[in-house]
C-alpha cells in the first residue's frame, strides 16, 4: 500500500505507511510475561501534503493520539514506516532526529499541564530557539519571543508572567507560540482546542487557520469533535480500533460517507439548529467499542455494523480508493 492518498503527485511532507504500534501487556510480579498485545495502531497509511490540514478523528481507543505520538517519535512504532520530508524517522541518528524535530512540532490538549509552571511565558517560548542556537541569548531571544507572542495573539507584556496567571485560552496561545518558535513546517495538534470553552475555541481555531495561511504550515489535526475537525481540515481520516475506516476530503465525507461507521458517527453529532435536527435521520449504534486487547476478527467494526455479512467476519477489508481521493476499508462500500 504505497500509493499516496492524495489527488496530486507532489511528494508529501508526511508519508505514513502501514504504521503499527502494538503495546505488550505484561503480567506477573517477579517474572514478567507478555500476556497480550494492545494493538493501538494497526496498519495505518496516509499522507499529508505540504500546506494542507489532515484531520484525524475517532472515539476513545481508536488510536488517533497514539498515531500522533508515533509521528512525533514520542513512541517508537513497532511496524511500518514514517517518512518526514522523504526521510524514514526510524533510521535517523540522534542529530538527524533533532533536526527533524525542529520542523515537526506539537500543540497539546491540556493548557494546564503542558506548560512548565515554574517558567515564565518568556522562558517557555524562548527556550527552544535559545537552546537550538536559533537566537542568541538576551536581546535577540527576547525580540523573537515578543514576535511569537504577538503572532499567537498575546501581548508581549505578558512575557514575565507565569502560566497560572493566565486563562485556559491564553495558555493555549502560549503553547502555540512555543510550537512556532522553532519555525516548524509541520504541527501535530493533539486535541488542541478540546479543553477550551466554545467562544475561546473559536478564537483559537481562527488563529490556527490564520497562522497556516501566513506561515505556510501543515497540520495533522487530531480531535474527537467531528464538527471542529470538519471545519478546519481539508481531508479527514476516520479511525476505529486502530485502523482507518475512511479517508476523504471533508465536505465529501459529510455529504457522501461510504463507511457505515462514518455514517453512524456523523449521525450521532448533533447540529446546533433545531429545524435541521428535526429532519435528520439518526442512526444509533448498539453496544460499546470492543477492547483493543481482543479486537474482533475480520473487519473490526463488524459486531456493531448494520451491514455486516459473512465476509466481514472473516476477512479484514483492504483500505482502497473507492472513488478519486475517497478511501475506505469496507467490503460493502
Amino acid at each position, binding site marked *: 500500500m504505497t500509493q499516496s492518498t492524495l489527488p496530486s503527485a507532489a511528494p508529501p511532507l508526511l508519508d505514513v505507511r502501514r504504521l503499527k504500534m502494538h503495546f505488550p501487556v505484561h503480567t506477573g510480579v517477579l517474572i514478567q510475561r507478555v500476556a497480550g498485545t494492545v494493538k493501538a495502531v494497526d496498519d495505518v497509511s496516509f499522507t499529508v501534503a505540504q500546506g494542507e490540514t489532515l484531520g484525524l478523528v475517532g*472515539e*476513545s481507543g481508536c488510536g488517533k493520539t497514539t498515531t500522533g505520538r508515533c509521528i512525533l517519535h514520542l513512541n517508537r512504532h513497532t511496524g511500518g514506516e514514517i517518512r518526514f520530508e522523504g526521510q524514514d524517522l526510524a533510521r535517523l541518528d540522534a542529530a538527524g532526529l533533532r533536526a527533524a524535530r525542529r520542523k515537526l512540532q506539537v500543540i497539546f490538549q491540556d493548557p494546564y499541564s503542558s506548560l512548565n509552571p515554574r517558567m515564565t511565558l518568556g522562558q517557555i517560548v524562548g527556550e527552544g530557539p535559545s537552546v537550538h542556537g536559533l537566537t542568541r541569548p538576551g536581546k535577540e531571544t527576547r525580540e523573537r519571543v515578543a514576535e511569537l507572542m504577538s503572532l499567537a495573539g498575546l501581548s508581549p507584556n505578558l512575557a514575565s508572567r507565569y502560566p497560572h496567571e493566565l*486563562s485556559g*485560552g*491564553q495558555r493555549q496561545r502560549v503553547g502555540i507560540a512555543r510550537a512556532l518558535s522553532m519555525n516548524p513546517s509541520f504541527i501535530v495538534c493533539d486535541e488542541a482546542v478540546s479543553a477550551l*470553552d*466554545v*467562544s*475561546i*475555541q*473559536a*478564537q483559537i*481555531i*481562527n488563529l490556527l*487557520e490564520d497562522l497556516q495561511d501566513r506561515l505556510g504550515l501543515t497540520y495533522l489535526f487530531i480531535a*474527537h469533535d*467531528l*464538527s*471542529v475537525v*470538519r*471545519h*478546519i481540515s481539508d481531508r479527514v481520516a476516520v479511525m476505529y480500533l486502530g485502523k482507518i475506516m475512511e479517508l476523504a476530503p471533508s*465536505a465529501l465525507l*459529510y455529504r457522501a460517507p461510504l463507511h457505515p461507521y462514518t455514517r*453512524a*458517527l*456523523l*449521525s*450521532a*453529532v*448533533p*447540529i*446546533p*439548529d*433545531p*429545524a*435541521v*435536527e428535526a429532519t435528520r435521520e*439518526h442512526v*444509533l*449504534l*448498539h453496544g*460499546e*467499542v470492543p477492547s483493543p486487547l481482543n479486537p474482533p476478527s475480520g473487519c473490526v467494526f463488524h459486531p456493531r455494523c448494520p451491514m455486516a455479512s459473512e465476509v466481514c467476519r472473516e476477512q479484514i477489508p483492504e483500505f482502497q480508493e473507492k472513488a478519486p481521493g475517497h478511501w475506505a476499508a469496507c467490503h460493502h462500500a
Partner: protein
Amino acid sequence: MLLQVKNLQTQFFTQGKRIRAVDGVSFDVAEGETLAIVGESGSGKSVTALSIMGLIPWPPGRILGGEVIYQGRDLLKLAPDEVRRVRGKELAMVFQEPMTSLNPVLTIERQLTEGLQTHLSISRAEARERAVEVMHEVGISDPLRRLEQYPHMFSGGMRQRVMIAMALSCRPRMILADEPTTALDVTIQAQILALMRDLSRRLGVALVLITHNLGVVARYADRVQVMYAGQIIEKATAQKLYAAPKHPYTVGLLGSVPRLDEGERRRLQPIVGQPPDLGELGPGCRFMPRCPLAEARCGVAVPPLVEVAPGHGSACLKADQVGNAGN
C-alpha cells in the same frame, strides 16, 4: 408548574473574594418538559442545579437568597431531613463525571438499592428486584451479573446508565442532568441522550439538561435558557432561540460553533475577550466588555430579563436590534 426557582443567589467565599456564582436566577420547569440550561464555564449552570438539590458545600459556598418552590414548599427553607425526603426521590440528579460519581467500593447492587431502601421503605430483596427492573429500563444487559460488579469494571457509557438508573429508581418527577454525556464518546452520547429522552416521554419525567453543547440543546430541548456570569440572559423555546436569538451573547455563541453541515470556507465568528472574573464584577451588564452593541447605558445597571416577544425573554437593552445586519 413542577418547580419554580425565584431569584436564586448562591455565592462562594474564597481567597478573600466573594464569587457571585448564581446571581438572581428565576425560572420554571413544567411537568414532563425538557429544559436546557446552556452556558460556558463559570456561567453558573452547574451551581444552579446543585443549589436546587441542596448540594452546595459550606465552606466555601452558600445559598444567600431566593426560593425553590416544589409542591408548594420552599426547598431552601426545609429542615435537612425533609430535604432528604425530596432529594433523590422526587428530584434526582445525574452528575457529569461517570468515572468518579459512583462509589468505587460499593457494588452496583448496593448503589442502586441504597436509595430505594431509604426512600421507599422496602426490604433489601424487594429493592434488588426493583434494581434489576430499572437496569433493564436503561438498557443494561445481563443485569443479574452486573449487580455484583464494581464501577471500575464498567465503561463510561455503562456507568452513566447506572447513574441514570439510580436517578430513575424512585420514580422522580424531575431529573437534573449536569453535562451527563460530556465525558463520553459521541456515539455513546447519542445512545444515552436518546435513552433519557425516551424515558422522559414515557414516564412523564421532566428533564433539566445542563450543557455547553449547542447541538445537544438543538436536538433534545423544548425550552432553553442561556446563562452568562451567574445570570440568565435569554430564555425561549429551542426553535425561537436558534432562529432569532435576542441577546448578543447568544448570537456570539451560535457564531462560534462549527457545524457539521456548514458550507465550505465558513469563518467562525468568535466572541472577543474572555468571560469576566466573577469576584470583580462591575455594576452594569456583565457581557458589556465583549459586546459589539455596547453603549454607555449598558454600564449603569444589570439589564433585567424581560419578555421581548411572546415566550421569549432577553436581558439586553437593545434586544430589538440584535440580529440585524452588522451584528
